[in-house]
């Protein structure tokens, strides 16, 4: 799920951007010697392949009218190895942002972490751990399923955490988290199924393209799918119910405090002088302290007056901006109408 600019605060966005940039820079440096120049074309085209593969949709059972498609991070990590997979998926996220405007520029750091880095490495790690030793089709099946479900859930968990740290949304942290986990459990499960099915197909048609070769026979049986679904549902369900019944944890508490006090200055208690200085700077230059929300029952006329004044200011701002935009547009329209006559 793509994070948007508006759900983040600037510090969180800057922090995640830094982490993502550092991570990507580190990976690029590390794999410079592993990725030979004949792998470059392959990686680029596999990035494009991810886009194309996401367009292959199929009907989902039990929910008529809905269709699923694959995400592909784990499949790519299994085929290319985690480093190359992470770079490819990161580039996919960047293109989704720049060309298709999916997810904002400031949210790019979050998206790279949630969609590319975490799923690639976690998925690959889980897959390799499960399939270590003698190869067997059961191990591949369990490994791929586990990798897909866990990788996608891990990415999904990060979204509400980042949103909660930013404090833009009013949705309670646990509600958001449970919704994300629930939805992405299904996404991850379908992803696991299609990944296993694709691995099975590759194993039949071209078994040599996977980095560490595939075992004798990978196939999907209805019974195995059912058993996996029940087991995963049980685990996730148990986890979710624990989460729902728990007392609000620290993060939620800090978040729940905020809607009542939009300038959440007392969110962090720290007596450090730098923090105090930053706070001071912030209160001086941030426009936050000046916003004018009026309580529903205006007792003082002074407050009412200020509200009226604020209302007029905002009215003037909006009107002025709209007029400016209209003037620009009309001028450009006139100029453009004139141009063909000139030419």
């Amino acid at each position, binding site marked *: *799920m793509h994070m948007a600019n508006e759900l983040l*605060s*600037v510090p969180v966005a800057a922090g995640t951007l830094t982490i993502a940039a550092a991570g990507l820079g580190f990976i690029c440096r590390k794999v410079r010697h592993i990725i030979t*120049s004949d792998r470059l074309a392959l990686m680029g085209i596999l*990035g494009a392949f991810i886009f194309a593969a996401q367009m292959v949709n199929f009907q989902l059972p039990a929910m008529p009218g809905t269709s699923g498609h694959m995400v592909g991070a784990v499949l790519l990590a299994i085929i290319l190895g985690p480093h190359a997979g992470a770079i490819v998926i990161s580039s996919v996220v960047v293109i989704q942002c720049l*060309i298709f405007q999916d997810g904002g520029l400031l949210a790019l750091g979050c998206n790279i972490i949630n969609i590319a880095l975490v799923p690639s490495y976690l998925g690959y790690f889980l897959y390799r751990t499960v399939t270590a030793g003698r190869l067997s089709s059961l191990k591949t099946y369990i490994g791929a399923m586990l990798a897909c479900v866990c990788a996608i859930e891990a990415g999904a968990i990060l979204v509400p955490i980042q949103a909660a740290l930013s404090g833009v949304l009013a949705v*309670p942290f646990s509600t958001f988290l449970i919704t994300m986990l629930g939805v992405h459990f299904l996404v991850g499960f379908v992803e696991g199924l299609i990944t296993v099915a694709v691995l099975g197909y590759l194993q039949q048609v071209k078994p040599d393209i996977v980095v560490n070769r595939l075992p004798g026979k990978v196939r999907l049986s209805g019974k195995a799918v059912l058993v996996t679904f029940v087991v995963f549902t049980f685990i996730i369900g148990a986890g979710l119910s624990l989460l729902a019944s728990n007392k609000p944890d620290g993060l939620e508490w800090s978040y729940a405090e905020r809607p009542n006090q939009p300038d959440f200055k007392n969110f962090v208690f720290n007596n450090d002088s730098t923090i105090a200085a930053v706070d001071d700077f912030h209160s001086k230059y941030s426009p936050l302290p000046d916003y004018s929300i009026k309580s*529903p029952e205006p007792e003082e006329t002074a407050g009412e007056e200020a509200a009226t004044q604020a209302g007029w200011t905002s009215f003037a*701002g909006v009107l002025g901006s709209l007029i400016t935009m209209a003037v620009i547009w009309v001028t450009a329209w006139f100029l453009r109408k004139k141009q063909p006559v000139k030419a």
Partner: protein
Amino acid sequence: MHHAYIDKFAYQDSPIHRLDSRAKFIVLLIFTALVVSLPRTSLSILFCYAVGPVAVLVLAKIPLKFVFKQILLVSPFVLVLALSCPIYDKTPVRVAFGPFFLGTTLGWVRCFVILGKFIVTMLALISLVSTTRFGDLLTGLQKLGLPKLLIIQLGFLYRYIFVLIDKVHHILRARNVRRLKNLGFKKELKIAAAMVGSLLIRSIDTAERINIAMQARGFDRTWHSLSKLRIRRCDLLFALIAISFMLGLYFFVKPVF
């Protein structure tokens, strides 16, 4: 799907298109950061910020209809989260707007501010992407210090997205022609997996051919571009105007509600 389906406007010509991609990118970054850091309750100031990207879009002759269609296309996730705000935050507030007073809840205000910020930052992003050729943007980003490997990766990706999307359209059409009814989940999944798998094998074959062709032409792992990037006087002027517009709005206009 043709190559110029999404970014067809990037290949036009206008004063904005001719600006250096680095200047535009940095201005966009500052703009987005400022808009995102605006208080979560001031709506009207967003209109003032919108003037910037709209001016750029109009100057660059990008049809606004296309822009808003594009924004609508990517909005569902934000829309859902924004609309959940009024449900959870029911602090009543009174909004003053000109001669009108409006009683509402803080949740609705937040919802509209989130949507407003979304629209304004998207306008800005689209006004960069649809006025800059992707190759120029990559060259600019390379000069700004992005790793070479990532630049090459992005370049390849951009070049071949449209090729592979064409291929997948063929495959999808073939399936639609042959499948007359829903075949049940297991069969459907198997078919989809075969489609994805064959697409994967095809792209790996394509990559091999491309690699041989590139090696034959002396590929040396660097991204070359024909357009030479130079910071000219008009680039500096653009950056100066844009940044003073933004900072002026940020520091001297008190955001009111």
